[in-house]
């Protein structure tokens, strides 16, 4: 075990997969010499050479589309987008070419798209988005979103090995702030939910940076038995774990950092409302960003992004319900 930051854990997964599987190649804007906008692939060019660590033109459609072609030809490309926000620029190739490929043609596209997501550092409307729900609504694309260094490593390893397009949402705000123990060897974490905290009175469902916020929020709620389920994988969604947890706890709070309408949380809420009706002892509460672009200035951003305080209040309300 070593103590790694979330960012180091991502690098570690990439490095180990590249060492063991020569078909893994990295590509993206400034990933080679510069080591990526966030320095995730720093040093990779030296170790793996420019055939495997590839600086690309600014062409998100082409990054995804050529990755599909490279994947079909026997490679396992891992693509970095500089910010998750640019997924809109490669959207067509992702949803129409990559996502539908296996269903239509029986061909595998073993590609991973790394999206640095999320806000919390005054990134403004174009550097703070959480686009995972768009991809959840696009058949054929797996979507994962780790909250801890250990999961970041294990889920990225699984993503790279997966024969399908996997979008890996890595939360920028966790990159250097979040540290944790990570096994030194390579390991693959399954695309299932993870129980972060056990409890019986209330279940909180969340993922990404909101896991930390939720954990902090409930720590001060003395006497309450609160469970936190880190969804980790959004596609596939761990419906069994969600239904079991919601049914057992009877009260449910769902937290998304993304804009609320049609977000991942909406899907989780609808599943619980359909499958746990008889067990529920209160309304299904959701917390998410309102439907606005994420503003830049810290007080505005703080007003928009869900945080510890809002989660704590909602949890308290539900416990009192």
């Amino acid at each position: 075990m070593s103590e790694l930051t979330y960012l180091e854990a991502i690098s570690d997964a990439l490095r180990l997969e590249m060492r063991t599987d020569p078909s893994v190649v990295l590509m993206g804007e400034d990933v080679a010499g510069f080591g990526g906008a966030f320095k995730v692939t720093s040093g990779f060019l030296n170790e793996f050479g420019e055939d495997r660590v590839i600086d690309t033109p600014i062409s998100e459609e082409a990054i995804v589309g050529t990755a599909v072609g490279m994947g079909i030809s026997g490679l396992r490309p891992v693509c970095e987008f500089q910010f998750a926000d640019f997924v809109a620029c490669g959207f067509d190739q992702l949803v129409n070419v990559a996502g539908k490929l296996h269903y239509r043609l029986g061909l595998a596209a073993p590609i991973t798209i790394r999206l640095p997501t999320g806000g919390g550092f005054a990134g403004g409307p174009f550097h703070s988005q959480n686009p995972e729900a768009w991809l959840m609504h696009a058949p054929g694309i797996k979507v994962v979103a780790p909250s801890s260094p250990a999961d970041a490593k294990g889920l990225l390893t699984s993503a790279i090995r997966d024969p399908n397009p996997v979008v890996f949402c890595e939360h920028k705000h966790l990159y250097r702030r979040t540290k944790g123990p990570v096994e030194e060897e390579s390991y693959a974490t399954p695309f299932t939910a993870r129980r972060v905290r056990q409890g019986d009175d209330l279940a909180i469902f969340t993922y990404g940076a909101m896991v930390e916020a939720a954990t902090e929020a409930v720590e001060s709620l003395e006497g309450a038995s609160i469970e936190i389920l880190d969804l980790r994988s959004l596609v596939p969604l761990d419906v069994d774990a969600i239904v079991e947890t919601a049914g057992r706890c009877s009260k449910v709070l769902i937290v998304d950092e993304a804009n609320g309408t049609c977000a991942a949380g909406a899907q989780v809420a609808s599943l619980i409302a359909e499958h746990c009706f008889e067990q529920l002892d209160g309304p299904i509460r959701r917390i998410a960003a309102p439907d606005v672009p994420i503003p830049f200035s810290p007080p505005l951003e703080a007003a928009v992004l869900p945080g510890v305080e809002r989660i704590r209040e909602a949890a308290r309300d539900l416990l009192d319900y």
Partner: protein
Amino acid sequence: MGLGANNVDADARPGGSELLTSNDRVALLRYLLLMRAVEGKGLALYKQGKVPGSFYDGRGQEAISVGATFALGPGDPVCPLIRDMGAHLVKGTSVEAIFGQYLGRAEGVSGGREGNIHFGERRLGVLGMVSMLPDMMVVATGLAMGFKLRGEERCAVSFFGDGATSVGDWHEAMNWAGVYRLPVIFILENNGWAYSTPTNKQYAVPPLERARGYGVEARSVDGNDVEAVFEATHDARLAALRGDGPTLIECRTMRMHGHGAHDDMSYVPTELVEEWSSRDPIDRYSKRLRRDLELDVDSLRTEISETVAEAAEAALAMPMPDPEEATSGVFCEDQSGATLGLGEAPWSGFSASEVQQAAA
């Protein structure tokens, strides 16, 4: 008029490609006739209400997909579009399975998942197209990138139309192919129209003139001359395999049917259609082979139309897909069963000639 630049000097080329044997030539004509017969029969079935959805064909453009694909090695994948049935045929897709595809049957190429010409037999190295134009150019570029990085002597081919050149993906593919000098061939079927839109509303300057601005070699050929298309593709392929990078081949042609079966193309001046009728690629090539090889084209035609009729009958007898199957296979469980084949095409132009010579 979208066709100002498309001056095709019919039958001007004298001897055709020196690379082709007589057998090759007969095979080329056979594929041309087969494509026309398959699509003709498909259209008839569509008009009888037996083909669900819509119907698209490549009438008048047969020489392009046939000639280009004929020049490829078995390991060179193609990404055909809606006018490119010839690519499927040359690569060896079964005619029965194609009718099954039209009819949405379980034994159609895509098992009923995809319609009309949106299919691809992956084992034969054919990638089925998506509607979004010209996304497959980008995918072909990625295939070529894979070949280059893996040190494989293969090239990838993508077809696209004049209209598709306006889309951002066209630019990203061209730029990418040029930057990495990839073994990819882009085949522009310039038929002067994108649906009802003539090229002068699509671009101010022909795409051929743009290609060199990407470091992509470019040439223009008579798209209704199958050997010209063959030869240009053959050359581009050798350049690609030598490491000389990508080529764009403009094939000047005319779409002789509407955009789809629903389109009577009343927006196209009749004289233009008449003019191009006289340059029909199949008539021209039939004439040539009658003259040069004394080929009995009529019996070839009859033979093919019988094959096609039988295949269509067989397909009509295929079962519809099982609704239970509708939701399986969105994700790949086992990659080993889902790879692109290396192709089994009996014909592949120059390489085929060599094979034949060796076998002779």
